């Protein structure tokens, strides 16, 4: 009984700790001055207007963030599919090696990968182009859709493929009518995992953008020396909202516990 109370208190405390900085930042966004205070002084919503409409720096940064996040997540999914499919269908040493290689950038310190990509793009002459940034993030986050798609492929009952074959489906038709639709939720989840993480990433982006453009998080990173401003807090609120909406959607339409590695639910 006492243990139960302790458990609940511990979980509640964890939740408070986890939420604390987020709450503080959200509050600070209401400040009317240029400084971050908590609780906010003379609360106002002006900073939201600045961030979304009136300040070109932030509006541009937001546009870049959106372009990079969507395009790189899409590219990551396109790259991840053959990797995950190779792992599942063949499971050979070569396909394992290739998938391992694909997840290396995500597993190692991003600052090293960022430095390396900076060199790579400067040699190929595209350093500072937005598309180099998109490709960089796709490479960094390809590991995420590989994982989710692999989980999806593993959940396919091989008997379904046999059934499709006895019903006249060729390999291609079975892929289109059985494998793709059954793994769709996992593909979409992988896409959004990559999207959200790309949205928030800035270190790799810092090295590959070469100061010729900025995403929102990179813009904040660049102005770090001048201190934080309440407008940045608005960005923080926006980003946390996007994350919560995306993950709540995945939880609503997909099986989040299963994606995170729990056993399949018993129905």
């Amino acid at each position, binding site marked *: 009984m006492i243990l139960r109370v302790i458990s609940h208190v511990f979980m509640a405390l964890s939740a408070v700790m986890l939420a604390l900085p987020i709450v503080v930042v959200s509050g600070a966004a209401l400040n009317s001055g240029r400084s971050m205070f908590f609780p906010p002084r003379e609360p106002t919503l002006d900073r939201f207007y600045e961030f979304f409409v009136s300040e070109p720096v932030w509006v541009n940064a937001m546009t870049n963030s959106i372009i990079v996040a969507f395009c790189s997540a899409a590219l990551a999914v396109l790259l991840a599919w053959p990797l995950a499919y190779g792992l599942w269908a063949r499971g050979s040493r070569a396909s394992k090696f290739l998938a391992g290689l694909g997840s290396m950038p995500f597993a190692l310190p991003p600052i090293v990968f960022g430095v390396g990509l900076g060199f790579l793009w400067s040699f190929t002459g595209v350093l500072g182009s937005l598309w180099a940034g998109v490709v960089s993030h796709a490479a960094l986050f390809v590991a995420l859709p590989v994982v989710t798609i692999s989980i999806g492929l593993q959940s396919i*009952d091989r008997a379904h493929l*046999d059934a*499709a074959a*006895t019903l*006249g*489906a*060729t390999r291609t038709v079975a892929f289109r*009518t*059985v494998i793709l639709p*059954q793994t769709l939720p996992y593909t979409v989840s992988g896409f959004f995992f990559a999207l959200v993480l790309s949205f928030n990433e800035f270190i790799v982006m810092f090295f590959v953008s070469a100061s010729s453009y900025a995403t929102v998080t990179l813009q904040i990173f660049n102005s770090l020396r001048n201190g934080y401003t309440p407008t940045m807090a608005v960005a923080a609120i926006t980003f946390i909202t996007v994350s919560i909406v995306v993950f709540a959607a995945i939880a609503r339409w997909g099986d989040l516990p299963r994606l995170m590695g729990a056993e399949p639910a018993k129905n």
Partner: protein
Amino acid sequence: MQALELSGIYKNFGSVRAVESSNLTFAAGELTALLGPSGCGKTTLLRMIAGLEEPSGGSILLGGRDITGLAAHQRKFGMVFQNFALFPHLSVRENVVYALVISGVSKTEAMETGNRLLDLVQLSGYGDRRIGELSGGQRQRVAIARALAQEPEVFLLDEPMSALDAKLREDMQVELRLLQQRLGITTVVVTHDQREAMTMADKIVVMSQGRVEQVGPPHQIYHRPENAFVADFIGKANFFDGVIEKGGIRVGSVLLQAQAAANFLNGSPVRVACRPETPCFFQRDAAGTSLKSKVTFVRDVGAVRDIHLETEIGRMIVEYARGETDHDFRIGQELSIVLPADGLHVFPRAEQAVA
């Protein structure tokens, strides 16, 4: 409908021989059951027929035409899988017409066929449900309808009843058999349940350890088993080891009279099988061997009673059907039974090495 013929077909998995070279004919319009314990190669054989498994050698003929080289999707034999393998992302009707849709049949035509098939399996009105909303029995009907939609030349079922509960299983066996007879389709069913095989099949193929042990109609398999494995696997049997002696069989101190003993040379080691319903109680004049025995246990399962006996030649279980003259059995009671000479099955036995 065409007959299906397997000639010299075998399958190796690595160094393991999963199916020994077999020749089998599945007559047109008949239902054949592949029966055997798990791991006997019956499913592998079925998968080779479907084209899901490539045989290591031999050939498969359909109506005299060699189809060994055809992939599963070219044979298009309808197949019902153990857990039905229904597509969870499609509705009931979409599952049923899957084969038609991917082969380019028009939507309206597919829709019509789908409804007709759902009628056939008594699921009209369920077309728009999701697979997850169906019960086990309904799922099986959908799986059957789906396999039949493409009007296959051969209909294959892999343990179709194993996912159903016992009561439903009995009903579905009869229903499936009636459907198959109505359509007159050449059908192969894999099962490990001898009761199921005997309910449905025109012909049973008994398999063990990758080998075909016996092929024949159900009554023949039951009443004239060709070897000890079949006698043991199909129905129940009491076994005794003995040696042929003077036209009978010597088991311990008793010489059993058996008609089948005439087929063996004097002195050859044999195994005797006796079905539980064969021995007679209280009929001293029956032709056969009389044995003294003692009741050790009585199992009353309603319609019949299993009497466990300790006899001169070993333990045996004898079935006593409740007749007009009911008899009382008590543990410890001594009685004599008669093993009829024409009711014993005799099989050759490999001589065990004597140390």
